[in-house]
């Protein structure tokens, strides 16, 4: 530390502090949430995620028919064939409620992403 001026020391200290605050996010990777589609229903129908974090949704279609995961609020749309899975990235999102549905069977396949204020 005797190599650096007082100002540089302060800067390094702040840098270390800020990096440590975000390090958990940098090292942990994108959090993954799993959703299953069974009999044209989402399991779970409600998922809670923290605000301001990018999330990886892994949707597994256990039905034999295709479904389309769609959400106007999340601006996401993806077809998932029968007996297969799909990866969809959402967020970072502001706190609120973001409904999603299955476009092929919208009356039953409905769910919601609740973004918590942490």
């Amino acid at each position, binding site marked *: 530390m005797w190599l650096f001026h007082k100002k540089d020391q302060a800067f390094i200290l702040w840098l270390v502090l800020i990096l440590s605050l975000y390090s958990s996010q940098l090292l942990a990777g994108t959090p993954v949430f799993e959703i299953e589609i069974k009999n044209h229903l989402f399991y779970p129908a409600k998922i809670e995620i923290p605000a301001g974090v*990018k999330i990886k949704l892994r949707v597994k279609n256990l039905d034999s*028919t295709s479904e389309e995961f769609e959400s106007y609020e999340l*601006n996401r749309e993806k077809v998932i064939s029968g007996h297969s899975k799909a*990866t969809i*990235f959402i*967020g970072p999102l502001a706190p609120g409620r973001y409904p999603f549905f299955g476009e092929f069977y919208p009356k039953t396949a409905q769910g919601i992403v609740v973004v918590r204020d942490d």
Partner: protein
Amino acid sequence: MGLELVVLLNSVILILQETLEAALMISVLLAVNVRLQIKPIWIFCGVTLGIMGACIYAYHIEAVSEWLDGVGQEFINALLQIAIALCITLYIYWLFRFKGQTKQYDLDGRLVYSNQVQFVLLMICIIALGLTREGAEVLLYLGGFFPSSEQRFSMAAGSGIGFGIGLSSSIILYYALVNIPGPWRFRSAVILLALFAANMASQAALQLTQADWLPHTQALWDSSSLISERSVLGHLFYAIFGYEATPSAIQVGSYVAAIVLVGIAAKIGNRFSAGSKI
């Protein structure tokens, strides 16, 4: 009875949505064709190729979705949409380059030169690419009903109704465009084409954001209280010019960039049209 009705209504809405986008595009191109003096027979070619593409895409959707670490579907969709946007840009460039004329006659009235082929090829591409993506979605939806025979009739009836509404809307649009008087007939068709290209560009940006290839950006506005994406008007505006209630900054940026690109293409085409053969 309840389930049949639900399936019927779902089918109407789904097929209508997909039909509307393709049908509106065909209407605008047909309206421009009147000026270009091109016979509309190319539609059959474009639609056939589009259906073939849709079958291939739908058949391989599972494999495609696994590509590129699970985002193959977004990649292919974005590719198709960008290709359509580029085709439309080139089309508009040629429109202005050849001043909307595709045939040249000599003094005796004999046909000397015709460059209709390039316009026709481009239009076939646009329709085929568009139908590939939307058609695949329709096929995957319809395919889900074939193992079960109970709701098949409702699905078929609903699909027919949805298709019919989409077809009617595009016919109305065609006659509306063709009956606009004066220079605004050409201008309105070009504006609609430009908006469609911009729509494709912003949709492509959305697909790539979904795939995490483009960074997530904040929504620039929220107009869902004015026109909800769920409403009839919302769906119509989405089909015509890609209305989004909460578009991200990248989406809006892509949209504007596409419009600027089309504008530049039109300007350059205009500049080169002075000494052209036609």
